[in-house]
């Protein structure tokens, strides 16, 4: 029995091998080698379908960081199977397609390396049971998508698109991570299965709603839900196989997966219902509405993808209401929304994949994707046209294509939801069918645009750089397989329903008993029901709108281009850069004085502030040692000497005054019974003075400082305040007499260390280590001075690093 972990790892291993071995495959297109991976994986996974359909699941654990409970646990159930099949299946087709799309001159080793990386990461996302491992793979998909979008990184648009996609998806990922951590805090587990099993214990926890919102953020960013959808159109800078694979079939569906996976956890909550379904609805509308105005076919498909993702998302939201009622015959009705979501997920991958490949063919063969330059391709590219036609009609929700089935189910779900009498749905529920219907009309319109504008009408050879011709057969294989599925699913939907969707339903509704109950029979005709009427209305209104497109298209002009989310995003980035620059340059202005001021102010505010606020100061002069007149004189001398340093007109005077200070301190050391100190201080002071004099011969005399009155005042206030704080703390410390110092121990120095000079015994023995390091400090300083003086840059040596 092979483990699912291996399924995840195989693409990574192959990806890691590519950079080292790609040179060997000079003669064969690298894609052929790589194609083996998804095909093999697909077959391996497909063989498990029957056992899954019988309700079996597979769990396998490898320990990764067991001490933190991060374990590489894989969990194969119905839900992950759907996605895994999509990943490997569409992956195989896309790679096959790419073999003909990308010439060997491109850096294929990079392309396939990223693609495999992505495939592995994506499989990891859907198979991981451990949240942290899921997160690992989740971010890896963002990273590999970044690399794929920026595949042609010499284009500025590619780089910007890649950056945008990465920033948005990683940000969402980080939000999701926080959500995961919150889940762990609530449940103490990182395992999704365990969390699902213990839902009831923590659903009233304070963190429940925040965790839900954060996880949804992750899902929404990844699935390009409104208003995070802005990255997806820009991601179309990637090579078309990538767009077909990542940005329509798989990666963007990771968000869907996450929502589906967490439905058992959060689904019973009202917030979840509203957020998921409403965000989905808005996205559905906004995507389809915007798709109509696109002239670039790929951009059109991007917006259409956004819209379709919104559709699936809203279906999942609608389906979650079933959890509100628990398992009963009535509630099963609502699970059909979820069923429809999964069904449409598969359908969307088939027709959208095919359409992307068609656009890729046009781009590759004709050099443009702009509908305004295309037209009349039907006769010259018959196969391509057929594929496009089937894909578009399926997307528009027309029979006999799979899109019709899932679209009908979608309408049905929106209609059903109006009948629910909780969550104020009776009054608000009307929104769902209305929005769904309007969005479907736009969907119909843009599908017509693809068909009519690109393929019908007159050929416009003059606007194209290359002659119109049919694509090579290799490029057509993959889309043909996909449209074959589009048709096939329409005729045999229940095969899919039973073997693939049914196990998935039981993973989303684990408490809902028999999964067979949750699997409705899909049929193309089920009488004249509201959904059918809606579809017919869509076709009629859509056709009219398409006919008069020119008349109402100016509506788009009403939306100011200054307030699109895209512009907001760029403005946000640009203004944060410029604001940061402004602010940072303002306080990090290179002026040492300002830096020091900040430090001193921090000192005064924190130390002084705390001291005063908590009245930590206390002092008592009575415990002081006595003082004599001459000592007062000396103190006065030092104070005067110090103060007059401020007004010294020449540097020598100041230095001499510093010398006076040093000598007077030596006298205090004498008065305070510190002979060694007095000696050292005297010598050091003199040597310092000599040093100052030595250095002065290399320095200019100081000019009178040109400081404004205000500056001087500020300096003065700060200085006095710093002094005061030190004084107050000092006095309080002197007053704090709870402990005797440890130094009485050293009074046995003669017995312990054989020295009668306690200070020296401390320096040489008790704390000899300090002395040793201090010698090192001195040595470093000496050596440093030497090297600093000797090591100079000659003028011509100054290079860029010195600017």
């Amino acid at each position: 029995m092979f483990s699912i972990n291996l399924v995840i790892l195989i693409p990574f291993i192959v990806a890691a091998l590519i950079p080292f071995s790609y040179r060997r495959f000079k003669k064969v297109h690298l894609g052929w080698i790589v194609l083996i991976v998804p095909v093999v994986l697909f077959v391996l996974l497909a063989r498990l379908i029957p056992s899954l359909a019988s309700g079996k699941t597979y769990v396998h654990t490898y320990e990764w960081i067991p001490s933190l409970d991060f374990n590489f646990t894989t969990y194969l159930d119905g839900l992950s199977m759907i996605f895994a099949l999509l990943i490997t299946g569409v992956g195989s087709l896309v790679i096959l397609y790419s073999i003909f799309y990308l010439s060997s001159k491109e850096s294929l080793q990079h392309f396939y390396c990223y693609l495999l990386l992505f495939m592995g990461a994506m499989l990891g996302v859907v198979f991981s049971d451990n949240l942290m491992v899921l997160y690992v793979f989740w971010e890896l998909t963002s990273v590999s998508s970044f690399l794929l979008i920026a595949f042609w990184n010499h284009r500025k648009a590619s780089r910007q698109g890649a950056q945008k996609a990465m920033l948005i998806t990683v940000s969402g990922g980080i939000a999701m991570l926080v959500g995961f951590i919150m889940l762990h805090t609530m449940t103490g587990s990182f395992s999704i299965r365990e969390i699902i099993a213990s839902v009831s214990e923590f659903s009233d926890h304070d963190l429940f709603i925040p965790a839900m919102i954060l996880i949804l953020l992750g899902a929404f960013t990844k699935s390009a839900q409104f208003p995070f959808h802005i990255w997806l159109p820009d991601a179309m800078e990637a090579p078309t196989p990538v767009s077909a694979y990542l940005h329509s079939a798989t990666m963007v569906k990771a968000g869907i997966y996450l929502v589906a996976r967490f439905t058992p956890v959060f689904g019973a909550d009202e917030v979840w219902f509203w957020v998921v379904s409403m965000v989905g609805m808005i996205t559905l509308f906004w995507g389809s509405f915007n798709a109509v105005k696109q002239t670039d076919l790929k951009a059109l498909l991007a917006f259409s993808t956004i819209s379709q993702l919104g559709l699936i998302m809203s279906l999942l939201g609608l389906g979650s209401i079933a959890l509100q009622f628990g398992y009963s015959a009535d509630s099963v009705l609502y699970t059909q929304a979820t069923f429809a979501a999964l069904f449409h997920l598969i359908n969307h991958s088939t027709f959208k994949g095919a359409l992307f490949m068609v656009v890729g063919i046009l781009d590759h063969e004709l050099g443009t994707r702009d509908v305004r330059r295309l037209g009349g391709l039907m006769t010259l590219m018959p196969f391509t046209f057929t594929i496009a036609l089937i894909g578009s009609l399926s997307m528009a929700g027309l029979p006999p294509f799979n899109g019709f089935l899932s679209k009908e189910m979608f309408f049905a779900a929106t209609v059903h939801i109006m009948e629910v009498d909780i969550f104020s749905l009776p009054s608000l529920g009307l929104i769902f069918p209305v929005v769904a219907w309007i969005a479907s009309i736009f969907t119909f319109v843009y599908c017509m645009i693809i068909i009519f504008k690109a393929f019908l009408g007159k050929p416009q050879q003059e606007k194209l750089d290359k002659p119109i011709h049919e694509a090579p057969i290799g490029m057509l294989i993959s889309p043909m397989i996909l449209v074959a599925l589009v048709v096939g699913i329409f005729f045999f939907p229940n095969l899919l329903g039973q073997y693939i969707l049914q196990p998935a339903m039981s993973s989303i509704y684990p408490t809902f008993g028999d999964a067979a109950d949750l699997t409705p029979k899909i049929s193309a005709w089920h009488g004249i029901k509201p959904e059918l009427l809606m579809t017919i209305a869509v076709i009629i209104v859509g056709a009219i709108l398409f006919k008069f497109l020119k008349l109402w298209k100016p509506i788009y002009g009403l939306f100011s281009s200054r307030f699109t989310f895209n512009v907001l995003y760029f403005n946000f980035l640009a203004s944060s850069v410029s604001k940061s620059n402004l602010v940072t340059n303002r306080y990090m202005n290179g002026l040492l004085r300002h830096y020091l001021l900040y430090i001193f102010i921090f000192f005064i505010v924190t130390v002084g502030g705390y001291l005063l606020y908590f009245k930590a100061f206390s002092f008592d002069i009575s415990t002081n040692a006595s003082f004599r007149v001459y000592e007062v004189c000396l103190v006065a001398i030092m104070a005067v000497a110090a103060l007059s340093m401020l007004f010294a007109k020449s540097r020598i005077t100041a230095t001499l005054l510093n010398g006076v200070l040093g000598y007077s301190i030596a006298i205090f050391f004498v008065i305070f019974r510190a002979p060694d100190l007095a000696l050292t201080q005297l010598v050091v002071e003199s040597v310092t003075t000599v040093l100052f004099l030595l250095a002065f011969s290399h320095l200019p005399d100081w000019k009178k400082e040109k400081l404004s009155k205000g500056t001087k005042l500020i300096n003065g206030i700060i200085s006095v305040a710093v002094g005061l704080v030190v004084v107050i703390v000092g006095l309080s410390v002197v007053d704090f007499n709870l402990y005797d110092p440890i130094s009485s121990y050293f009074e046995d120095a003669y017995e312990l260390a054989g020295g009668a000079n306690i200070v020296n015994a401390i320096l040489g023995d008790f704390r000899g280590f300090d002395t040793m390091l201090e010698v090192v400090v001195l040595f470093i300083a000496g050596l440093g001075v030497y090297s600093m003086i000797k090591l100079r840059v000659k003028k011509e040596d100054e290079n860029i690093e010195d600017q």
Partner: protein
Amino acid sequence: MIEKILLASLTLFAISVAIALFRIIKGPSMPDRAVALDMIGVNLISMIAIISIVLKTKAFLEAILILGILAFISTIAISKYIERGTIIEHKSDD
């Protein structure tokens, strides 16, 4: 009695240090200041000697000698600085 006299002389020395300090601050010329610093050093020597008596310890007698030495060295350095701007020459002038 003895201690009082000693304290008095300490005070006197302190006063003369203060006066010398005044000269350092006021100047006007650099040699003036150097002279005053020299004098401070010398006065401090005396003070250390007296404090040793007051504290009845011989521990500070080294300090006296050191201070003598160092006052001398710094005076030389300062005077050379005033005179020539540098205090240590590379080569002998002779």
